[in-house]
């Protein structure tokens, strides 16, 4: 192994000190761990599912179960792409090329917004389950607790390598609210927020209203299906959720974002209309399915007569237009336009950055919603927008984006760059070909997209979300292929995200290590009202939200902590140890600057 010379090391340290504003001696201590490439840093022992998992525990009341700590899970090697037994000595020779955080489907929610359509679960809980979750008021707390997990695990639990970047694969704002969008960005940036809207002294929403018997009302859950199930009485929960600032520690590394269907369409499914826009900022909120169907969704349904008839039927069945209560109006709740999603990512702190979080001025000028970024000198990322602009939760790849990616992959192949693909949708949810009448762009589905990626061996991983579960699929061709890693969500149980580390095994193979993270809250929620205790409460409620089939979302052990082997697509010795050491020094300097910055 031949890393940087002493002179090169010192010169680079001086450069990084100047760039980060850190004192050289402070930075020098941070860099000391990586100074000797023959003595790699120790793996992090920060909490992850390698050491402890969270399982469903004993029944507390009715069918409601507590959560309990379970054993940690070691990495499971997966050989589907490699197609043979791996080298036994790879653990001793491997080196880390990139250590990356993966967040997805945070679904930050303003639960007091009149633009929510929670009562639709009364029309069919299974069908409309994502319109209301018992833990809806706690999404900011969960996201902040998840950010803390990434901050805690800022060095790799496998190699000790520093965290380099994080990717957010969509569905960040649940109901297209600008407030939700702002909260999500601030939580990731480490800007404190108080997750409330309106101006009422208390929580103004269905979970506080005795008339909404279909909802989980923590003050008095009796009289509805949640009470029947055994959901707990937590009289302080709603006030705790909205009254205390959430001081997120912020991500310690640059983070990048792509669109999800919830960042594109209302509830990830419907186009936005003027009626819903008016409701969002107004002073009336529905608590019955009749009112919601006849008013909130009526504007959308007017675009299709069959939908209108279906909504009319619901209105008749459940009562027409009755069922609104007055709430505080709040102009900050306005529903953002699609371009606003990109623009909001420029309203961000300079650190961890980058400004735009993947989106550039070119995106704002052109309206293109996809981007390219180099995460390291030899690892290139492509952030795609697979969301349908018209209707429906699933997605596809528009032809202009498909052709752009094809050209970019050819370049990456020629330049010997490893490629990671980031998108919201996964290969099981890429068949939505909805278009507007008279406008029929070509949309590519999963089979064509996977075939495209398989044509370029430099593609090693495709990270995505959407289905709120941990799933890892192999896509193979003769002699190789790539790995598709779908991470779970912050809204549904198990409320887990992942870190992914790319390693060169120095034997002609490489490995992608996936490590599942629980958010940094206790297994059993306390009553303090702290954001970590509220996040823990959210996880427990989510684990009992039967309509979301919570248990299967953990995935199998082949979908959680894994070593995903594949052939190296080119001779990885082109990445010299000195280059890698320099890269890690840059990453360590960022982490040192994060530590020095402290709370905002």
């Amino acid at each position, binding site marked *: 192994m031949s890393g940087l010379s002493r002179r090169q090391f010192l010169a680079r340290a001086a450069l990084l000190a100047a760039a980060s504003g850190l004192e050289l001696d402070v930075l020098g201590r941070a860099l000391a761990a990586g100074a000797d490439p023959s003595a790699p840093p120790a793996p992090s022992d920060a909490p992850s599912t390698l050491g402890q998992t969270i399982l469903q525990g004993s029944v507390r009341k*009715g069918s409601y179960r507590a959560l309990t700590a379970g054993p940690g899970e070691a990495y499971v090697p*997966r050989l589907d792409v490699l197609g043979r037994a791996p080298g036994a000595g790879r653990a001793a020779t491997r080196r880390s090329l990139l250590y990356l955080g993966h967040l997805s489907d945070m679904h930050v929610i303003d639960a007091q917004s009149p633009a929510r359509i929670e009562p639709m679960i009364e029309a069919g809980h299974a*069908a409309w389950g994502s319109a209301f979750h018992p833990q809806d008021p706690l999404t900011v707390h969960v996201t902040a607790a998840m950010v803390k997990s990434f901050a805690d695990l800022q060095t790799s639990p496998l190699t000790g390598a520093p965290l380099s970047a994080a990717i957010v694969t969509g569905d960040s704002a649940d109901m297209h609210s600008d407030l939700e969008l702002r909260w999500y960005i601030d939580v990731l940036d480490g800007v404190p927020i108080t997750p409330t809207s309106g101006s009422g002294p208390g929580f103004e929403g269905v979970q506080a209203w005795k008339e909404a018997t279909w909802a989980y009302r923590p003050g008095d859950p009796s009289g509805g299906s949640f009470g029947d199930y055994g959901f707990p009485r937590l009289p302080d929960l709603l006030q705790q959720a909205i009254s205390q600032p959430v001081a997120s520690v912020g991500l310690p590394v640059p983070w990048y974002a792509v669109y999800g269907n919830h960042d594109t369409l209302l509830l990830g499914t419907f186009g936005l209309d003027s009626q819903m826009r008016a409701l969002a900022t107004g002073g009336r909120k529905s608590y019955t399915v009749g009112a919601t169907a006849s008013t909130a969704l009526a504007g959308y349904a007017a675009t299709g007569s069959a939908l209108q008839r279906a909504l009319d039927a619901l209105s008749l069945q459940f009562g027409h237009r009755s069922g609104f209560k007055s709430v505080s109006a709040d102009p900050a709740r306005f529903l953002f336009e699609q371009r606003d999603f990109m623009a909001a990512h420029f309203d961000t702190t300079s650190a961890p950055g980058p400004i735009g979080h993947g989106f550039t001025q070119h995106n704002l000028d052109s309206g293109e919603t996809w981007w390219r970024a180099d995460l390291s000198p030899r690892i290139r990322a492509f952030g795609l927008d697979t969301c349908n602009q018209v209707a429906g*939760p699933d997605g596809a790849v528009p032809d202009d984006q498909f052709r752009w990616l094809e050209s970019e992959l050819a370049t990456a192949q020629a330049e010997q760059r490893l490629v990671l693909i980031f998108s919201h949708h996964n290969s*099981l949810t890429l068949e939505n070909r909805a278009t507007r009448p008279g406008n029929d762009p070509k949309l590519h589905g999963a089979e064509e997209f996977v075939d495209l990626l398989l044509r370029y061996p430099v593609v090693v991983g495709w990270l995505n979300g959407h289905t709120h579960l941990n799933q890892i699929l192999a896509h193979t061709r003769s002699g190789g292929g790539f790995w598709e890693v779908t991470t779970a969500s912050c809204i549904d149980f198990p409320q887990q995200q992942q870190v992914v580390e790319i390693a060169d095994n120095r034997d002609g193979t490489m490995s992608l290590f996936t490590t599942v993270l629980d958010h940094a809250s206790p297994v059993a929620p306390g009553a303090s009202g702290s954001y970590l205790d509220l996040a823990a409460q959210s996880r427990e409620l989510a684990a009992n939200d039967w309509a979301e*089939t919570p*248990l299967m979302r953990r995935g199998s052990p082949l979908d959680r902590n894994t070593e995903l082997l594949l052939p190296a697509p080119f001779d990885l010795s082109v990445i010299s140890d000195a280059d890698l050491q320099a890269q890690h020094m840059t990453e360590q300097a960022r982490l040192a600057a994060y530590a020095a910055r402290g709370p905002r």
Partner: protein
Amino acid sequence: MSRPVLSRPVLSRPVLSRPVLSRPVLSRLWRRPAGWALAAGAAALLAGCSQTAALAPVGGDRLTEVRFAANDVLLQNGVQILTAPVCTASGDAVSCAGSTMDSQPIAVSSAASDQGDLTVTVGGRVLYQGSLQGVLDAAARPSP
């Protein structure tokens, strides 16, 4: 709910009972982002309309459940996997195929007529036959 019928059941305890309000596997096909209750009625009236077709449930859930449960069965039985089961759906029937390190075929099936049931075989030997949900529930709860 059927119980494992094998000499070597994957679950070391009886299949767990479902929560009172749990739904059968079939009904869970309609889930994630909302809208499809309406679309179900509308689809027949607007057949061929791409926007209505888009208001379908998020894809892949049943396939995924079968795959997760099959993997749980294989790992709990110590099967050395070369190729993890790759699943395909034909209507509501799901079948999966994989292979072991010693080249034995892995076969998984869950029939359309009994979607709550799962069968996993390795090299023709039935490793598990019983409740799909029971496998998933057991995997998410502490071992007794």
